[in-house]
């Protein structure tokens, strides 16, 4: 309830300030409830964040459905694009994990497209970027982390603990190395989550500021932030791809590390 009231307050503030726009670069990260729901005392309301995640999922499925309408041997443009994404993810798994990684390919494909579409759809004015939410990226990252630990324990049992004691080290160094290895291992999901969240947040904040200046400045001066915003939008599209790629490739790397301990 608190959230709704703040959201409404924010909205009314906006409406009141329409004559003189206010600089609120973080406003578009505000999660707002649309349909309040709860499950066993848990708040599972549908928010703008979850709405745009669902839209992304629907968009991905629609994209593939349209691309594969004919299942043509000689692909059209859209089908080529879909196949390109598919083969890209497949090669990513093949190159980073090898033949054993084949069963994790659907996961990597889904992660790549989930992150990519959330990043790109978030660039639509008025939309919401779910990947700019730390809890969203954190959920994905922790999921990948748990999966990689699970694979490691399932394959190597207690031997998986050797991950923290790299072979070939003098015994005297172990007290120093083990804490470092443990920290770096635990930092993996954090860095995976924060990298994506921070990239999206920073990019969208800068875009928001530029557009704010474009609107508030006189037209002759507003051209400058507008041109920045145009260029930054292009950069953001690029970053959207890069971050999806990084998320997918790091997932492969973590799974590979768990499978083939070094």
């Amino acid at each position, binding site marked *: 309830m608190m959230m709704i009231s703040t959201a409404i307050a924010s909205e009314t503030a906006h409406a009141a300030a329409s004559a003189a726009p*206010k600089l609120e670069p973080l406003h578009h990260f505000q999660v707002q409830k649309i349909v309040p*729901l709860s499950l066993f005392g848990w708040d599972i309301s549908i*928010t703008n964040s979850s709405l745009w995640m669902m839209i992304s999922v629907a968009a991905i499925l629609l994209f593939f459905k349209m691309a594969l309408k004919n299942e043509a041997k000689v692909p059209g443009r859209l089908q080529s694009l879909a196949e390109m994404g598919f083969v890209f993810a497949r090669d990513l798994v093949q190159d980073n994990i090898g033949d054993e990684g084949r069963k994790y390919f659907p996961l990597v494909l889904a*992660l790549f*497209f989930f992150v990519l579409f959330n990043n790109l759809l978030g660039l639509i004015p008025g939309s919401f970027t779910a990947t700019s*939410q730390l*809890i969203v990226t954190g959920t994905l990252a922790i999921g990948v982390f748990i999966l990689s630990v699970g694979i490691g324990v399932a394959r190597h049992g207690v031997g998986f603990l050797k991950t923290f004691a790299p072979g070939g080290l003098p015994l005297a160094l172990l007290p120093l190395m083990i804490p470092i290895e443990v920290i770096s291992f635990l930092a993996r999901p954090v860095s995976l989550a924060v990298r994506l969240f921070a990239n999206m947040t920073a990019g969208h904040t800068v875009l928001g500021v530029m557009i704010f200046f474009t609107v508030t400045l006189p037209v002759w001066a507003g051209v400058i932030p507008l041109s920045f915003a145009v260029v930054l939008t292009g950069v953001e599209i690029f970053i959207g791809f890069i971050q999806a790629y990084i998320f997918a490739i790091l997932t492969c790397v973590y799974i590979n590390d768990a499978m083939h301990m070094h």
Partner: protein
Amino acid sequence: MISVAHASEGAHAASGGGGLPQFDASTFSSQFFWTLVSFLALLFLLNKYVIPAINRVLDAREKTISGDLSNAENMKKEAQQVLADYQAKLRDSAKKAEQTLADAQKEAAQNREQALKELNAELQKKQDSATEAIEQAKRKAIEEVKVVAADLAIITTQKLISKSVTKTEANKMVTEAISEMESAGSKALN
């Protein structure tokens, strides 16, 4: 402007978060839940429908391409076979033509030799028969000369025996005898 920003900050503070809205823990449970739901739904649907469909397309294409390639390979082999056959046939016919030419030349040479031989034989025969005729004529002439000489001798002897003759008479007799002979001879010759 500043006051509204402050108001917004105040609202955040009131809802338990500070600074970035992303750190507002009150939104975590719903976002966590819906992230899991939407991602797992995506994973399930991709795995169930999209991945098999794309695999079908890629497999079908691979099959087509490898089929086309092997077809092309077969056709190439076939073309090479045809070319080899053609060249062999060409070589054969060239050899045959050579053979025919050689045969013709040999036959022509044989024919010429044959004709030459026949001609030679004919000429030889003609020469032989001519020689024969000449020999015969010669023998006949000799025979006749012998006869004439004998007759002349007989006639002359008769005349000598029957009369003693003077020289002039003797000459006259001889002349007579010869003329007699000549007439006899010409008669005989004819």
